[in-house]
């Protein structure tokens, strides 16, 4: 089978990946690189558990063929968040506010939060809800997740916005 080679910066570390181009980014992350923080909840773009960032965009790793992620792309998964001040702040916010229950949605959810907050101060009043509308959580009823993101937004480290 044809394979493509990609050099990606994943969570700040360079990785060279060889993969069939149609293989899902999710499988490359979870199976080839054993970055199992990113989860599969539905495999069809409906739950958001597989949310990761490719460059500055939020993407669903279950829908994205690895071949479409260009050479040189920067990929951020839940495992990479603790390497950034904003990511650590969000982790603290989620833990402090009780935003994680079973935790399976959290890797995707918190990447969505991170992508939202690093874009700068929240503009629209419903910015948080809209930014996480694609992340389904069946446990929390979302209230504590919203509280966590608000808490982090208030304390977002200015020096790291927008490009940490």
């Amino acid at each position: 089978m044809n394979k493509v080679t990609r050099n990606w910066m994943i969570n700040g570390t360079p990785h060279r990946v060889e993969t069939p181009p149609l293989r899902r980014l999710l499988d490359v992350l979870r199976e080839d690189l054993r970055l199992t923080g990113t989860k599969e909840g539905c495999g069809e773009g409906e739950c958001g558990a597989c949310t990761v960032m490719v460059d500055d965009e939020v993407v669903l790793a279950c829908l994205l063929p690895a071949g479409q992620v260009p050479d040189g792309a920067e990929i951020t998964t839940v495992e990479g968040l603790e390497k950034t001040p904003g990511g650590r702040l969000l982790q603290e916010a989620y833990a402090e506010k009780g935003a994680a229950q079973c935790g399976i949605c959290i890797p995707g959810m918190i990447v969505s939060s991170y992508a939202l907050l690093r874009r700068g101060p929240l503009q629209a009043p419903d910015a948080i809800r809209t930014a996480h509308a694609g992340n389904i959580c069946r446990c929390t009823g979302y209230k504590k997740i919203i509280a966590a993101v608000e808490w982090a937004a208030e304390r977002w480290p200015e020096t790291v916005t927008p490009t940490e």
Partner: protein
Amino acid sequence: MAVKEVTTYRVVGKGIRRLDAADKVRGQAQYADDLHVPDAWHGVVVRSPVAHGRLRGLQRSPDFDWTQVVVVTPEDIPGHNIVDMMGRDMPFIAYDEIQYCGEPLALVAAPTRQLARTAVAHITPDIETLTPLLTLDEMVTQYKTNPPVLHELSAKQIRKGQGAAALADADIVLEREYTAGHQEQLYIEPQGMIAIPEKDGTLFIIGSMQCPYYINPELCETLDIPPERLRVKQAAVGGAFGGKEEFPTLLAGYCALLALKAKRPVKIIYDRNQDILYTTKRHPAWSRYKVGLNKDGTLHAVQCEFLLDGGAYTTLSPVVLYRGILHAAMGYRCPHVAIDGHVYRTNTFPNGAFRGFGAPQALWAWESMMDELADAVGLPPHTFRLKQALQQGDTTPTGGLLRDSVGSPAVLEQTLARSGFADKWSRCSLGRAEDKAWYGIGCSFFAHGAGFTGDGEARIKAKVALDLEPATDGQPIVNVRVSSTEMGQGTCTILPQVAAEALSIDIAHTGFPMPDTFKVPDSGPTVASRTAMVVGHTVFQAGRKLKQQLEERVAALLFEGQPVELRENEFHGKYDAQTVPFMKGAAAVLAADGPLRVYDQFKLPAYIKWNQDTFEGDAYPAYSWGCNVAEVWVDPLTLEIKCHKITAYYDIGRVLNPVLALGQLEGGLIQALGYALMEKITIKDGKYDADRMQTYVVPTMLDGPEMDIHFLEYPYADVEPGAKGVGEIPMDGLAPALANAIARATGIRLRDLPLTPEALLKHGGFAAPAQTA
């Protein structure tokens, strides 16, 4: 009101951060699919394409190289081909009559999932098709016209006073029918399991589950191995809600049978489509009430028929039925009660445990009925409820006495007051043509039995252990050893809180290792809102025992025999001012004696009397209480229903951790919102039509209403620290509160769940008749 005297607690009652929070926010928690098991093969189930039939045989195509895979058929099962739940009617692998679409016919394992699926595609079942009975509607029609046709899986009745005969002396009699559809748990982690044959002959099962001690012993009979050779361990669980109570046994069985034959680890991770199609749902239900009222608006007699669609096999349906009928006329004083409950078979996947366990279906109908009854006697629904809400000293429909810890009617009164109910209720739209948006408000009031029904706790005798042992860093730690599992609800934090409280040490010195049947005693399954109350109490008792033992040993080792008290994380000598930190004292005990384990076991208070045959007596040791007020806007043009606010009070006894308890209520209410307004499954060609997340739609962050939730604590005096249950009660009341609100908004009474714009349209939505009765 017997509010237990407020004790000051150090650890209990604090919003302590979850012990698993750090792992979960860092993506480090290990769920079944994250476990790396080298050389594991993938299992796939060969399933019946028809809902009802007779299996004549399975043809394996000669075009496939069968040496690359392992196939398991009933002949390969070492023990009995039976899944032993409450009935012994379900085979692991069907061999004769097929009862539902998707029933397993064989199992296949291969080095890759792809190859296993290819193998499955080369197996063709030969089936003589039979006529299926598929839906609740068909079931109810048969029940009304030709009941002997139905296959009964379970039945139970409740009688109080004169029963239905008393309807004859009522001033007003009202009859109504209600239905509720399937609901899918939709935990975000699909089910997954791994079976690993170990070198020493043990079989190790690890995966996503609520109840490790269901799998062992249930599987032992099938695999024909002794319990001490079957080790079951829980991996991190990504949500369960009842959906991982009984069915992980099946997954474990498939993996185990394949692993034993393949002589290597086998894993099965369902994808979302398989998970929706081939795991349990909430039972669809039908209720018919005939209720007799006195002229003054008091309840005189309740007759209720309560039917559950059990799906193909008995599984846990009898207990779901019991909890259903026990809540079907709860909450209010009524001298005469007759409830008849039945579970009948349909040719669909067996329905099973789901948060609330029959109570949400029963209360959906009963609390809708309460509003219709209030209308019938011309009373506002809140006045009608306040008039007869149960109080301390009253008896339940089974004649159980409400002795203690009764949050009724306080939670009802408080919720009504806080939401401004009476005033808002009088200003509802009732489908007025001139209104641009229709406003409505509705309420529901309910109790939820905490713990197992009847004498269940007396039979289970929950056992817990506390281990003082060295942690991975060598420092002493008190580990809570129970089979109660963490699945998001907070067990891994509240039980250590209780242990720390009993010992008077800091929570940092406690731990909660993942339950493993080789390491923990059986504290019972993690179900029935029983963990905080029953297991919590037992952990507290064990903590007190361990405290005493530690004090004695530390006295001998470090205080030259003078009496010692462990208090606020320090050992204090009785006669001098000397203190020793807990960790130092514990380290001394560990060094001298090695690890220390104490056990304790739950005992039901002696006054609890229950007759399982007649269903008379104390159905539950205690009840949690709740009241929901829902406010809605309905768009007169599109009939779109939007719930914008929920006000609720709950008495869940002592609140062990307010952040976690609120999390349960908020999450449960949003799940209940989905049940009430959005989540719908119909059956097409014997299959669920909504079989993916695209078609089975649950609430997102955009759907959440404002939630104003409060606790009223009426601690349960017979347990420490006095918790009742919180897990299930948030599912109980929102659907009827919403139906009642929608009736006030539109003038239309909906009696079938879910409550949708289409249903409003069917009832003449645009014409909006002010239909009340």
